[in-house]
């Protein structure tokens, strides 16, 4: 059952246009350039003082050492006084303090850098979401889009938060430390370089393995995730078919796979540090022994040895972390490219330059030779024409995939027509702004989207200034008032996507109330009552009728009983209108509609 791990899935993400992406990141962070410059200045001073301090402490140690020896020779006791060493200690302290101050400065400035960059990118993503055509949302899973704004950005902030500062300081520290080390002794430095090289090789080997095992854990985890999601959603079936033991076994297997891959990934991630530390320490032992010999030979002072070791520490860490840093930076850049790719996605056509305005439309809607396809090479609608006169009720019927919802999508300009025209009150809708067009429509969809807020807020979504009285009136008209009042907090009940606290039918009633409150000139009901039972539907129907009076309305319905009184029925098939007319005339024509109707009410 277990599939072989797909190599592609395990491959590390590598940026494709690293230079271009870095350049663009620089532009994106332009409001923070001053910040970066300040950090760079601070880094220069920080590294400078970090290099100087060991030098001075070497001097101080030698000072003590010589002082102690000299004092011992004269049989005196060595003691610090202000004149004698105290000043020097104070200077060392000041050196440390200055280094520390720059450390503090750069750390605090950088603490906000990555998140500010992320905020800017998130805002751009947020704005982009508003400008993307609906086809983008059809092509991409919500999870995928959300992951751009969360996971990808998290990766970036993780890499930039500590990585960028480390990158800056490392360069100076490594170069500076190496110069000082060479100045002290060539051979000691070479020993150091040899062992550092060794640990660099080790890190690069390990970090590749780490990333691979992390990817594998991710894979196992995502399998477990989809298993659990599925099993919890279908738990009733599991129980009804007595599959508990089976299902539990599957879970245990998946959990075991996760545990195995996780323990490996976790081990590799943790083991890398002791491994490097091990190599470095062995190197330090060699340096220590060799330095001891140099000391005895009088080629180095005690202070110099001590200073040399401080340089060793300063240079070793950044050097061994190089490959790890390159990896995280690369994956951050790859994430960045995902984000830029999304930000570069094609947007909706711009609004008309001098838009025409239709306020409170009378409600005449006309389709004139409309051609449309979701992709240009595959036309769905070849030639659609019909006219809805003000106040008429237009019903659209047909099988799934016949193009009923597409018709509405075009009317609302969620999609743009390829050819032909759609007119509202004799104005081409393409000449209006989308906002103006849509303000004339009220829509109830099959998909009962509500946001996490109170019931009252949800009903007032289209008219935030509505009073509580208006909200209740709308809810009453939609037959939602009764169930709302039985909820523990009534209209102030917070709808929570997680708690599943109201049923699908009830959600539908709320979306109807939402439109009732706005009272728009044209109504669109796309399977609006599909999850409401027929009796309630009838009751809402009464309210709808009042709402539809003097309003043009488009109704897509499964149950033909709700549309027999329509003024115009459009029968659709494969994207085209194959019949249109009133209920009576269509029945008399004895075509597709008649067949459909008879099959429902035989």
């Amino acid at each position, binding site marked *: 059952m277990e599939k072989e791990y797909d190599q592609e899935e395990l491959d590390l993400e590598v940026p494709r246009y690293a230079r271009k992406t870095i350049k663009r990141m620089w532009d994106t962070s332009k409001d923070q350039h001053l910040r970066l410059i300040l950090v760079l200045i601070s880094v220069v001073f920080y590294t400078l003082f970090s290099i100087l301090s060991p030098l001075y402490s070497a001097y101080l140690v030698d000072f003590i050492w010589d002082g*102690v020896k000299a004092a011992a020779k004269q049989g005196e006791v060595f003691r610090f006084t202000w004149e004698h060493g105290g000043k020097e200690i104070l200077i060392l302290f000041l050196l440390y303090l200055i280094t520390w101050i720059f450390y503090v400065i750069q750390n605090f400035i950088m603490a906000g850098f990555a998140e500010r960059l992320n905020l800017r990118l998130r805002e751009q993503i947020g704005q982009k979401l508003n400008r993307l055509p609906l086809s983008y949302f059809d092509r991409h899973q919500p999870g995928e889009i959300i992951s751009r704004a969360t996971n990808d950005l998290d990766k970036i902030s993780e890499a930039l938060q500590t990585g960028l500062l480390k990158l800056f300081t490392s360069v100076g520290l490594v170069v500076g430390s190496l110069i000082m080390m060479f100045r002290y002794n060539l051979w000691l430095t070479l020993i150091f370089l040899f062992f550092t090289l060794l640990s660099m090789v080790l890190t690069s080997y390990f970090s590749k393995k780490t990333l691979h095992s992390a990817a594998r854990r991710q894979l196992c985890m995502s399998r477990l995730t989809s298993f659990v999601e599925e099993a919890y959603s279908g738990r009733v079936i599991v129980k009804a078919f007595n599959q508990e033991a089976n299902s539990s076994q599957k879970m245990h297997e998946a959990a075991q796979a996760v545990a195995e891959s996780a323990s490996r990934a976790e081990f590799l991630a943790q083991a890398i540090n002791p491994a490097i530390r091990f190599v470095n*320490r062995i190197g330090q032992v060699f340096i220590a022994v060799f330095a001891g010999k140099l000391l*005895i030979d009088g080629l180095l002072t005690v202070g110099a040895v*001590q200073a040399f070791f401080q340089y060793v520490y300063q240079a070793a860490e950044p050097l061994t972390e190089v490959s790890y840093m390159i990896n995280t930076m690369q994956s951050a850049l790859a994430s960045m490219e995902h984000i830029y790719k999304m930000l570069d996605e094609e947007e909706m056509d711009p609004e008309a330059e001098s838009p025409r305005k239709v306020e409170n439309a009378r409600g005449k809607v006309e389709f004139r030779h409309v051609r449309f396809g979701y992709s240009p090479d595959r036309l769905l609608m070849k030639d659609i024409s019909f006219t809805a006169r003000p106040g008429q009720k237009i019903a659209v019927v047909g099988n799934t995939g016949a193009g009923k919802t597409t018709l509405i999508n075009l009317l609302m300009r969620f999609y743009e027509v390829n050819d032909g025209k759609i007119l509202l009150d004799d104005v081409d809708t393409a000449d209006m702004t989308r906002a103006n067009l849509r303000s004339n429509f009220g829509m109830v969809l099959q998909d009962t*989207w509500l946001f996490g807020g109170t019931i009252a807020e949800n009903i007032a*979504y289209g008219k*935030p200034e509505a009073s509580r009285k208006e909200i209740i009136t709308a809810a009453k008209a939609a037959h939602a008032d009764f169930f709302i009042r039985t909820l523990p907090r009534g209209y102030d009940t917070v709808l929570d996507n997680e708690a599943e606290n109201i049923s699908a*039918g009830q959600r539908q009633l709320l979306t109807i109330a939402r439109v009732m409150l706005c009272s728009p000139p044209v109504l669109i009901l796309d399977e609006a009552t599909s999850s409401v039972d027929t009796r309630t539907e009838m009751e809402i129907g009464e309210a709808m009728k009042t709402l539809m009076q003097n309003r043009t309305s488009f109704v897509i319905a499964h149950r033909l009983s709700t549309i027999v009184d329509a003024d115009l029925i459009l029968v659709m098939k494969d994207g085209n209108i194959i019949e249109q007319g009133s209920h009576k005339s269509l029945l008399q024509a004895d075509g597709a509609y008649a067949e459909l109707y008879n*099959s429902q009410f035989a």
Partner: protein
Amino acid sequence: MNIIISFIKPYRAFFVLTLLFVVLDVFGALVIPTITADMINVGVSAGDLGYIVKKGILMVIVTVFAGASALLGSYLSAKLSAKIGQDMRNALYDRALTFSVHDFEQFGTASMITRTLNDVSVVQQAVVWCVTMVLPVPALCVLGIVMAFSIEPSMGAVLAGAVVFVMILTLFISKKAAVIFEKMQHFLDRMNVVLRENITGVRVIRAFNKEKYEKKRMKKSFEDYAEAAIKTNCLFAALDCFTFFIINILIVIILWAGGNRIGGGTMEIGDITALTEYTILILFYLMMAQMVLILLPRAKVCLERIEEVLEHKPEISDGREEDALEDAGEDVAVFQNVTFRFKDADEDTLGGLNFTCRRGQTTAIIGGTGSGKSTIAKLLLRFHDVTGGRVLLNGRDIRTMSQHELREHIAYVPQKAWLFSGTIEENLRHGKEDASEEEMFHGLEVAQAGFVKNLEEGMKAHVAQGGTNFSGGQKQRLAIARALMKKADLYIFDDSFSALDFKTDRALRRALAQETKDAAVLIIAQRINTILNADQIIVLHNGKTAGIGNHKELMESCSVYQEIARSQMKGEEM
């Protein structure tokens, strides 16, 4: 908190061993500078290269041991945390399987998923951190201070003072830090919710021209999060800087006081190196421990959420199976004066229900949304337990049998046709594990799911999670076929024909009648057409029986039924 201990318990030896190795590693880190000091003090001062080399070899040995301990420590801690995570997930899942519908709804599906996956991950991570970064710290502090004491008591005192000072400060910081961190977590969740809403609700948002409003809402959630995240980062930066500062001060004190003591002969020059190293090591570990402690409250919340599930007692438990089966004749399922009320509701969902499903007969239940139709199916399957009266299956109160046995006798098609990811064949086998190919094709045929034959891969065709790659009608037919695989005494169809067109509906019902003639059939429906020919129809209204009889009788006597019929047969016929 006890719960984590109970999960660690099976790995007690593991746990102790892990700690031991981690402490050994830390101990090695302390011993090495001590040897270095020795090297300088004795070897260098006396100019004895042999001594230096000897100490060097000792250092290599210690390094090897410490390195090996570190590796073993990380290996064991990784293994330990993975094992604990695995056990927790299994325990959560197995507990979830015993939950009734009501039990499960108290947590909600999304929350149960989070608890089983993310919460366990967080706890797992916390275990690793605690074992490797917090638990060894006391040992490290004590050892380091003792070693400093052995060099020179006053130096030990200085180090001890610094450690106590940092620890006291930690107590103050972590409280504040926990608040900041919690806030960030909250804003992170909020950001995710708002983003998801904006993506899934894009049509509604645009239809209502709410783009600007949503933009503001998103911006607000982004800004809140950024602000909290920056605050958190500053907190960590402050911690880091603070530690750095203390280290600097201690180094200067060591130099100053050390210099005098070297002069006084109570210390040697190499000891300064050792003391400096001890200081850096201890403070570094203290800082890491502090960071972990800041993150721990989050793990604690997750742990509590896990505990909630594990401690939740399922409301439905198996009955004792000792009662012998009595002969119930043709009565398969009997509802005797059944009432049902949801735990937190003020009113009964079902009240005073009496009816019998007989072998060879079709019983139909019809009623509006919220009339309690589906609850009847759930009571039969014991997804809920009755609050009054009793339900009999084959003459026995269903509460006296095991749930497994009960469900053996029932084949169920749910309202929401849910299929599992895999192949069609695998889904059908849920009904009967060892079903032959013919049996499966027969089941599909009866369910009017002949379309499977036309699929390229036939029975092996892939099914996406939830069955989303099939249309609503196809899904329903597959779900029906799955139920038909099972030879049962009672077939329950919970609104299972709603997505079928009327022609298929009719053909299906005809084929079904043949298939289920030796069993009782219970159909829950909204459409009157579906149940026209049922032997008895029970009309539910607000949880009470508004009428029982066949179509004809009800059309004459039952006003609720007439109303339903009218609502569906509007048009010329009525």
